[in-house]
C-alpha cells in the first residue's frame, strides 16, 4: 500500500512539476484588447475573483467548494459534497449517517469540527457533533462551502478545533426565476426540488424552495439490505433587502421533517446479550435567521445577527427537543492605514428536553445552557502589501467548563503577486457536551463464568472538562500562472485533556432479575497526544475547457493515555493516514460535460471490524443544450458492488452497513 501511495505522490509531483514549467513557458497572456464588449463580458475570470482573493490572502488552510463544483460532482447532499475538500475525511456508515472530520479524531460524532450554515451553528451540544441528516438545503442554492482546516476558535468559538465548515447560500438576487429538478436512481430513489425567486420594487429580492428526497438502504457486508432507508421533506425562503446602498438585511428560514430506519445493538442481561433492534425514527425542525449589515465610510462595518433554531429527534434510544436562540454583533473598523480591527459579542441560550429509553438516560432531562462570548482581532500591516500579522483572541463563558480563552497569531508574507507564505499558532478548546456530563448508557453485557452477568455502562462525569489544543501551522500557496495553483499546508498539533473512559467501582445489582454487576466507565480527560501532517491541493487548468484538481493529505496521530488511564489509542488509526483525490472537469463539444472523480482513502485498522482502504470512482456525463435545460447521468462508487467506510457507534461494534454502487439521472429546468 505504501508503495502505491509513493507512486501516486511521485506522479502527482511529476504532473505538477511539468505543469509548473509549462505554465511558466506559456506565460504571456493572450491579447484581450481585440475582444469586443460582448466577448469581454463572457470571459470567465475563474482564478482570482474577489472572494477567492480572500482565500488566497488568508493565513490559514482554506478551501472552497463552489456551487458549480457540487453540481459537476453529481452529489446530492452536503456531506457527500465535502468529499471534494482536500484533507477532509467523509465516511458514510448508514444511509443517513456520516462520520466527517478534519485532521483526525473522526467519529460518529466528530466533536472537533464546527459546522455553520449561513452563520447558524449546527453543531449539537447534545453529543458534540453534527446530525448530518438534517443539514440540507436545495443544493442549487449553495453559493459555496468554505472549509478551514485547523483551529478557527478565535473567530468562531469553542469546538472550531480541527476545522470549520461554512455552508453559504446564494443571495436571492442571483436566484431569480423558476427552477425545477427531478431525478432518481438505484440509491437516490427519487427526488424533486423546486425554487422560485422574484423581486419587489428595486431593492427587495426573495426566493422560496421546496425539496423532497427518498433515499435507498445501504447494505450489510453480506449484501443484504439494511433497514435504513429514509425520506426528507423541506422548504424554506430567503429575503435580501437593500434599503439603502449602505444597508443589507437578510431574512431566511427553513422547515423540515423526515423519517429513517436504523438497526441498533441493545445490550441485554440474558443470552444472546446483544439484540439488534430495528427502529423507525423521525426528525423535524426549523430555523429562522435575520442579519443586518451596515457599511459606513472608511471600510467600517457592523453586523447584527439573530437566529432561532428548533430541532426534534425521535429515536429508539432517546427523544430530543431543543430550542436555540443566538444573538451576535460584530464591528469592523480600520485604525489608520495599518490596522484593521474586528470585534464582536455573541450570546446563545439552548434549552433541551430529553426523554430517555432505559438503556440511554440523560439526567437531568431538561437543561438550559448559556454561552456568552466576545472576540477581538487586529490585522496589522507590518509592511504594507508584504507582511501582515493577525492577532486575536476569543473569550467565552459556557455552562460546562466556565471561562475559556482561545488566542491566535497568524503571519502572512506576500513576496510577490503569485506567492504566499503563512504561519500560525493557535490555542483552541472543545468544550464538554451534554453527553459527557449527563449520560448513562448501557454499552455491552457479557456473561462471567460462574458469576452474574456484567453490564458495561458508560457514564458522564460532572468533572469532565474541555479538550485543549495548541496548533502550529505553516502554509505555502503559489499561482505561477492563471492556469495553475498549488496550496500546501503542514501542521503539528498538541492535544491535552482528550476524552477517555475509565473504569469505576463495580456495583452489584442483586435484587434485579437477573442479578448482575454494573461496571461503570466514567468519561474523563486522561489522554494527551499530538498529530502532524500535510495537505496539498493543486488545480491545473491547462486549457479553457479542462480543469484538473489533485489533492493529497497525510496525517499521523500519536496518543498517550496517562499512566492512570486504561484507554486504548484507537483514535490513532480511525482516521486515514493517506487520502488522495483526483478530479477532472471537461467541457466537450455539443454542450456536453464529462467529469470524473477518484478518491483513495487509506485503511482504518483500529475500527471494529477493520475498514480496508478503498478507491472510489465517480463519473458524470452532463448535457446542457440550452441555458435553461440540463440533463445529467451520474455513476458513483463504480469500482465495487459495496464497500465499508466506517464501523462502530460510540465504540460499540455494530453490524456495519456498506456504501453501494449508485447510478442516477437528473434533469433540471430554469424558467
Amino acid at each position, binding site marked *: 500500500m505504501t508503495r502505491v501511495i509513493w507512486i501516486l505522490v511521485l506522479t502527482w509531483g511529476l504532473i505538477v512539476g511539468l505543469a509548473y514549467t509549462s505554465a511558466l513557458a506559456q506565460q504571456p497572456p493572450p491579447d484581450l484588447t481585440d475582444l469586443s*464588449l460582448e466577448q469581454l463580458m463572457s470571459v470567465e*475570470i475563474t482564478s482570482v475573483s474577489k472572494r477567492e482573493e480572500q482565500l488566497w490572502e488568508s493565513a490559514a488552510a482554506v478551501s472552497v467548494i463552489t456551487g458549480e463544483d457540487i453540481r459537476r460532482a453529481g452529489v446530492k447532499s452536503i456531506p457527500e459534497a465535502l468529499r471534494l475538500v482536500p484533507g477532509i475525511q467523509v465516511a458514510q456508515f448508514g444511509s443517513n449517517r456520516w462520520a466527517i472530520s478534519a485532521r483526525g479524531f473522526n467519529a460518529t460524532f466528530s466533536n472537533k469540527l464546527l459546522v455553520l450554515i449561513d452563520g447558524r451553528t449546527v453543531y449539537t451540544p447534545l453529543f458534540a457533533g453534527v446530525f448530518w441528516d438534517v443539514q440540507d438545503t436545495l443544493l442549487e442554492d449553495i453559493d459555496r462551502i468554505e472549509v478551514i482546516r485547523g483551529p478557527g476558535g478565535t473567530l468562531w468559538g469553542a469546538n472550531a478545533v480541527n476545522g470549520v465548515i461554512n455552508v453559504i447560500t446564494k443571495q436571492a438576487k442571483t436566484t431569480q426565476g423558476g427552477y425545477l429538478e427531478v431525478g432518481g436512481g438505484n440509491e437516490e430513489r427519487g427526488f424533486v426540488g423546486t425554487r422560485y425567486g422574484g423581486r419587489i420594487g428595486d431593492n427587495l429580492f426573495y426566493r422560496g424552495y421546496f425539496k423532497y428526497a427518498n433515499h435507498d438502504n445501504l447494505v450489510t457486508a453480506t449484501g443484504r439490505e439494511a433497514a435504513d432507508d429514509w425520506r426528507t421533506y423541506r422548504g424554506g425562503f430567503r429575503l435580501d433587502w437593500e434599503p439603502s446602498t449602505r444597508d443589507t438585511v437578510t431574512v431566511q428560514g427553513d422547515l423540515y421533517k423526515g423519517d429513517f430506519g436504523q438497526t441498533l445493538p441493545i445490550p441485554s442481561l440474558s443470552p444472546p446479550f446483544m439484540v439488534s433492534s430495528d427502529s423507525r425514527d423521525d426528525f423535524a425542525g426549523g430555523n429562522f435567521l435575520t442579519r443586518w449589515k451596515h457599511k459606513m465610510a472608511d471600510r467600517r462595518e457592523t453586523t447584527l445577527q439573530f437566529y432561532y433554531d428548533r430541532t426534534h429527534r425521535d429515536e429508539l434510544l432517546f427523544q430530543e427537543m431543543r430550542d436555540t436562540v443566538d444573538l451576535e454583533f460584530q464591528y469592523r473598523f480600520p485604525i489608520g492605514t495599518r490596522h484593521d480591527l474586528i470585534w464582536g459579542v455573541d450570546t446563545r441560550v439552548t434549552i433541551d428536553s430529553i426523554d430517555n429509553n432505559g438503556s440511554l438516560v440523560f439526567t437531568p432531562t431538561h437543561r438550559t445552557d448559556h454561552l456568552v462570548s466576545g472576540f477581538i482581532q487586529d490585522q496589522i500591516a507590518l509592511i504594507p502589501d508584504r507582511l501582515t500579522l493577525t492577532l486575536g483572541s476569543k473569550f467565552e463563558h459556557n455552562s460546562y467548563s466556565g471561562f475559556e480563552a482561545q488566542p491566535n497569531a497568524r503571519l502572512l508574507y506576500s513576496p510577490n503577486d503569485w506567492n504566499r507564505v503563512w504561519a500560525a499558532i493557535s490555542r483552541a478548546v472543545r468544550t464538554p457536551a451534554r453527553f459527557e456530563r449527563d449520560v448513562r448508557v448501557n454499552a455491552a453485557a457479557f456473561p462471567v463464568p460462574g458469576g452474574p452477568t456484567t453490564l458495561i455502562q458508560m457514564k458522564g462525569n460532572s468533572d469532565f472538562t474541555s479538550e485543549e489544543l495548541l496548533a502550529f501551522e505553516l502554509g505555502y500557496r503559489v499561482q505561477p500562472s492563471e492556469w495553475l495553483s498549488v496550496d500546501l499546508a503542514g501542521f503539528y498539533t498538541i492535544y491535552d485533556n482528550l476524552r477517555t473512559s475509565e473504569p469505576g467501582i463495580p456495583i452489584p445489582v442483586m435484587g434485579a432479575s437477573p442479578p448482575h454487576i454494573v461496571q461503570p466507565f466514567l468519561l474523563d480527560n486522561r489522554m494527551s497526544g499530538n498529530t502532524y501532517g500535510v495537505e496539498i491541493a493543486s488545480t491545473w487548468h491547462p486549457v479553457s475547457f479542462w480543469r484538473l484538481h489533485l489533492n493529497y493529505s497525510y496525517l499521523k496521530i500519536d496518543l498517550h493515555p496517562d499512566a492512570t488511564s486504561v484507554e486504548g489509542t484507537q483514535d490513532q488509526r480511525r482516521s486515514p493516514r493517506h487520502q488522495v483525490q483526483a478530479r477532472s472537469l471537461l467541457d466537450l463539444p455539443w454542450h456536453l460535460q464529462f467529469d470524473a472523480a477518484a478518491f483513495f482513502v487509506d485503511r482504518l485498522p483500529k475500527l471494529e471490524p477493520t475498514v480496508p482502504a478503498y478507491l472510489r470512482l465517480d463519473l458524470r456525463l452532463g448535457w446542457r443544450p440550452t441555458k435553461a435545460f440540463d440533463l445529467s447521468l451520474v455513476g458513483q462508487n463504480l469500482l465495487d458492488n459495496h464497500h465499508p467506510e466506517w464501523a462502530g457507534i460510540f465504540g460499540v461494534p455494530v453490524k456495519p452497513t456498506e456504501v453501494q454502487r449508485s447510478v442516477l439521472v437528473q434533469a433540471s429546468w430554469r424558467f
Partner: protein
Amino acid sequence: MNRRPIFIRILLLCLLLVASGVDGVRPLSSAHAQPLPLEYQVKAVFLYQFLKFVEWPPQAFHATNQTICIGVVDDGSMSSALQSVEGKEAKGRRVVVKRFKKLEDLEFCHILFISSGLEGRMTEILDRLRGTSTLTVSDIDGFARRGGMINFITVENKIQFEINVDAAERAKLQISSHLLRLARIVPEGR
C-alpha cells in the same frame, strides 16, 4: 514498515518541488510580464473599450494634444494591467495611462479607475471630480448607486457592469446605446 521515513520523504519531496518551483520562477518571470489576475486584464480592456463608446464634450480634448487618457489611483494590479492598452488608439488618439500615487496628484483624465481599496475615500474623490467630464469607473460595491458612473460587478465569474446614467449626464458624457444595452442601468441611491 517504518512510518516516519515516508512522511519525511513526502515532506522532502514537497519542499524540493516548492524550492525548485520558486527558484524557477525568478529568472523566467523577469523575462515575461508579471502574472496578473485575469480579472484585471479584462477590466483594463473594458476601460479601453469604454473610450470608444462614450462621447466626451469637445472641451475635454486639447486641440493640439492627440491623446486620450485613462487614469488610475494607486492600484498595482490595474496599473500593470493597463500596460496592455497603453499606446493603442481610440477615437484617432493615442491612449495614455496616468498613474497617480496620491489623490492630491490627481489630474484630469477621460476615464478614472478607482480601485476598491479606496472605498473609504470614494466620496472625497467623487467630490473632487465634480464639474469635470471624467468617466468614473470602479469595482467598489454599489459604486454606481453611490454617485459613480460605471461599476464593475462579478456575476458567476464573469464581469458585468452597472451604469448610473444620471451621473454620466451630469458630467456631460454621452454613453452609446450599445454600451447601455449591455449594462444594468441603476438608479442613484442616497
